[in-house]
Structures are given as C-alpha cells and as structure tokens.
C-alpha cells in the first residue's frame, strides 16, 4: 500500500471504532461558531431573495446590462459555480479510479460541495433569461406550438450537460452516503436514529450488499469521470461556438476544465478549514490532506497560467486585428483592473505553493484559496463581460458596463444559498466517509491488537 494511503493511521488512536465515533460526533450539537456561520449564510440568502423578488417584479432593467454587454454577472456566477462543482467529482470519481488513499477523508465534503454548487449554478441561467416563469421552455416537451428546442445550439447542450451532471453527482453522493448513514444509525439515538434508519435503505453491510455496491460504485465513478470533463467543456462551448473575439478559441474546453478544477480545489480548502475546526476532525483530516490538495491546486493553477499565456500569444501570433484589439482591450482597456486581478490571483499568487512550509500551513492555504476563488470569479468576469464590452465589430456601441445592486445582491444570495445547504449537510449527514476512511486503515487481525 502506498505511504499516502495510511496517512490517517499514523496516530495511534485511529481505529475503526474511533473513526465511527469521531464522525458520528459531528452529527451532534455544534458550537456557537457553526450557528454564526449558518446565520450569516441565511442572511445573505435573504438579501439575494429580496433582490430576486424585485427583479421578478420590475424586470432585468434593474441589473446593469448595457449594449453590447447582455451576458454579465449572472452568467459569470453561473460559470463560477459550475466550475466550483468540478473538483468534487474529480476527488470523488477520478481519484477513486486512480486508487488515491488520501481522497477518503476529504471526498464527501467535496462531493457535497459539487451537488450544492451545481444547484446554485442552475439558478443563474433561469434568473438571466428575464421571464423566469417560462424556464420550462428549455425542456423538450410536446407542446401546442409544435416547437422543439434547437439541438444545434450550445445552450441546449449546456442544459443537458448541467442536468445530467446534477442528477449523476446527486445519486453518486447519495450512494456513497448509504453505508455511512447505516454506520451512524447504529451509534446514535433519538430522532436521528429514525431518520438514518429510513435513509440508510436497510443497509447492513452484508456480503451480497457489498458485492453489488462496490461494482455499481465503480461504474458510477467510471461514468462520472468523462462526465465531469464534458460538462465544463460544454459550458466553454457556450462561448467558443460564438464569434466574439476572446471567446472563439479552440483552447476553451481544456482551459475551462482546468480552471474549474482549480477553483473547485480552492473552494474545498476554503470549506475544509472551518469544518475541520468546528467539528474537531483534526485526526482524520490532517495537514497531509491539505498538502495534497495544495499540490492539486498548484498543478491546475499552472495549467490555467499556461492557458492565459497561450490566449495572449495566439491573439498576437494569429495576427487577426479583431482578436488583437480584444486582447489589448482586455489587458489595458477600462477593465484592466479585472484582468490583472485575475492574473495575479490565479497565476502569480499560487506560485507560493511550490514551498513546503506554505503548503503545510493551514492558515496560508486558507488565505491563498480565498484569493484563488476571487481570481477565478474575475476570470469568468473578464472572459464574459470584458470580451463583450470590448468587442471590436461595433465601434460606436462599446459600453461602460457597471453591475448594479441587483447583480451584487443576487450574487451574494448565491453564496448564502450554497453555504446554507453545505452547513446543513455537514451537521446532519456524515461529512467524512466512515467506511472509506476505515478502508485505508490496516484491518484488525489476530496478530495486531486493535481495540477501541
């Protein structure tokens, strides 16, 4: 077994029973810190709902759209949240297929993050369409007009990709939870025992159950792996299929996938630091796990930095005047601050992760991960808003685009919505996989005395 796989076993206290009890303890009564965080999340959500109600009543004129910037903060947030989702599936499915032992302690949190991030992302196209109550027109269903969606449009591909991704990541999360809910069911008492008795679907860990379960889980991981790579590729084609300079590039699919995983890993770090503290999971989620996440962050960050270079190089080397003008506008136009925020946060700051003292410092990682989150939000803002604002085909139409309170309010609400679901999840369901953490421990055999 590789050395990384036994990481949680280094402490002498970590036994099967310890794992069950440490994780079941997170389901109890969290401290004041938890409720403070939950309260802030709900407050943010309330702000977002207030703005959304006004938007429904008075229309999209409240947001800062101005010609030709008709895709703006809402689409930026959509791409941002879909991106956040990706590292969850990477950690839970791709690293599962690669048999990475260290993923066991962090994959549940990452996977829950995936589901809630896609849930958040899905709201934005619906908010953005203007007449939100007609969102169901996107779905191909027989109707009195005899119309069907245009399957040659990348927006319809996107709807199918996001719909599939949400469904598959949700069932993947639930499947992984079943044995752990059963383990929690057998150690807790009260109303939770009843809840877990129902939601564990009769799981008892029999050989028949494990035989079908492990096979099925393998196939789910094998299906989720190409899915995660496809979803952000399809999201990127929303842009790359159009002719706007700055969007129309073949590099977009791998560039978006790497960026998505990058932002997602940063978000996993941002979420794990407080969760580990609030629920006292220091023995299970160790510095070693954070270091591995940091390495993943560095790898994907380097790919993103490379993509930035290639974008500018292609614009110059390609010699297309429109393309060159767009990238000049991006770097030195009125939105220079957004472009440079993105480059500094995403390409320069993570270079600090080359140094081991920084990779192993939780506080440093937390700070860097927040900057990466900010940088990745600006990356989408730069690609979407700045490319549209600077598009050189309509010389006299270039806008000075300013987001309004309706944009910022709904964006803040989306963070509240995401964190609310995430915090409710970690308190009510096992936030660390019980059975998979046990799998990387040495099994109790007669030779080694392993006691509770």
């Amino acid at each position: 077994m590789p050395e990384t796989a036994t990481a949680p076993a280094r402490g002498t206290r970590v036994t099967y029973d310890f794992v069950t009890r440490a994780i079941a303890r997170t389901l109890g009564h969290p401290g004041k810190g938890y409720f403070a965080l939950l309260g802030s999340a709900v407050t943010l959500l309330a702000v977002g709902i207030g703005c959304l109600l006004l938007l429904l009543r008075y229309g999209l004129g409240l947001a800062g759209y101005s010609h030709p910037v008709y895709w703006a903060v809402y689409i930026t947030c959509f791409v941002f949240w879909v991106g956040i989702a990706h590292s969850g599936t990477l950690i839970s499915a791709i690293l599962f297929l690669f048999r990475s032992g260290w993923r066991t302690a962090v994959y549940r949190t990452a996977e829950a993050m995936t589901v809630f991030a896609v849930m958040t992302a899905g709201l934005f196209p619906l908010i953005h369409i203007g007449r939100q109550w007609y969102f169901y027109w996107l779905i191909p269903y027989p109707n009195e007009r005899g119309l069907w969606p245009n399957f040659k449009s990348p927006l319809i591909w996107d709807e199918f990709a996001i719909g599939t991704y949400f469904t598959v990541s949700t069932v993947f999360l639930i499947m992984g939870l079943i044995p752990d809910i059963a383990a929690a069911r057998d150690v807790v008492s009260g109303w939770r025992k009843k809840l877990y008795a129902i939601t564990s679907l009769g799981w008892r860990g029999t050989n028949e159950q494990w035989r079908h379960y492990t096979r099925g889980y393998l196939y789910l991981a094998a299906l989720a792996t190409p899915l995660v790579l496809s979803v952000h590729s399809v999201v990127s084609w929303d842009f790359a299929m159009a002719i706007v300079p700055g969007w129309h590039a073949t590099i977009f699919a791998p560039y978006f996938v790497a960026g998505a995983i990058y932002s997602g890993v940063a978000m996993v770090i941002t979420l794990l630091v407080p969760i580990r503290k609030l629920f006292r999971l220091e023995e299970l989620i160790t510095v070693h796990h954070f270091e591995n996440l940091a390495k993943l962050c560095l790898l994907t960050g380097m790919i993103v930095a490379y993509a930035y270079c290639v974008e500018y190089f292609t614009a110059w080397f390609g010699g297309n005047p429109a393309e060159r003008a767009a990238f000049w506008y991006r770097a030195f136009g009125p939105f220079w601050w957004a472009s440079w925020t993105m480059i500094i946060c995403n390409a320069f700051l993570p270079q600090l992760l080359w140094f081991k003292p920084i990779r192993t410092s939780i506080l440093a990682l937390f700070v860097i991960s927040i900057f990466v989150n900010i940088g990745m939000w600006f990356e989408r803002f730069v690609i979407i808003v700045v490319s549209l604002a600077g598009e050189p085909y309509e010389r006299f139409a270039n806008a000075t685009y300013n987001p309004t309170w309706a944009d910022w309010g709904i964006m803040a609400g989306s963070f509240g919505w995401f964190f609310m679901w995430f915090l409710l999840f970690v308190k009510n369901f096992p936030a660390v996989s019980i059975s998979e953490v046990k799998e990387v421990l040495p099994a109790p055999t007669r030779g080694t005395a392993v006691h509770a």
Partner: protein
Amino acid sequence: MKLVNPLTAIFHPPPTPGVLGVFGHLDATVDAIGKLRQGGHTDFTVYSPIPRHEIEDALDQPVSPVRIFTLIGGIAGCAVGAWITLYMSYDWPIVLGGKPVGSIPPYVVIMFEMTILFGALATILGILFNALFAARRLGTVAYDARFTNDKFGIFVPCEPARAGQVEALLRGTGAEEVRRA
C-alpha cells in the same frame, strides 16, 4: 395497526433460524468462511463494516450483475439521445443555408450526456434491485449493530438440531461471541 395476513408475511417475515457469530478480526472471519464452505454451508451471510477483498476471495462469488444494468442503461441512453435530436429536428425543421436538418456532430453531445445519465441511473437501479429489493431474507437474518462499526459477522442459517455443530465451528475459528437466532 395490524396488517392483513399476506402483507404481514411480506413486511414482517418470521426470523430465519440459525447461528450468528461476531468476529473482531478479519483473518478469523476469512478462516471461518473457508471452514463453513468446506463443511458444505453455502447460503450464509457475512457482515463487514467495509468491503474487503479477502472476504470476497474467500466467498468466491460471481461478478455482480450490476454491470449488465449499466451496459443496457448506457446503450438505451445513447439511443434516446439520437432519437430525440433527430426526430425533433425533422419534426420542426430549421433550414439554414442548405445545411443538413439533422446533423450528427452537434447531436453527439446530447447522445453522450444521455448515455451517462441513463447509464448512471440504471446502475443505481441495479444496485437497489440486487442489493436491497431482491436480497434473499433481507430483514429476517440476525444482525448486530456493531457490524457497521468495527466487528465482522457471519450468520449461518441452520436447523436447531445442527446449531451446536455450527456454534463449535465459529468458536473454533475465533468468534468473540456466538448466539442462536
């Protein structure tokens, strides 16, 4: 509420008579599985908190049929993706510059997504059907709450007359606790 008789039989089946052994060690459990199979027992149930290849190897069961569900689901999804895109394109043709009304390359995206969606949902159904709904004697076999925590267990269904022999076998291989159900 009292259920009528046939429903009672379905929802509250009588417990299966047999012997339940609780093991603290993986190797002891594997030994016991080997001894039971040598002794001609075939339909015993092994509980473990985690899936272990040692137990799988000792039981030597065929590969789970879940893979057939995945395969059929995936193929069906791909077919559905091809069908909805082509049928809907020709049912409401959008003719642009003499280009084909139903063009395969953009529809590959939809076909791919539907393959994954149907494949994943069929896998879930496969697991549920095989592991939960179709499991033999589910809910009638003795169980101990420690089996999801840190103990392994073996339940051997047998007539009370043979129970003593099975008890001795389980104890002999290192069971920490043996009880009749």
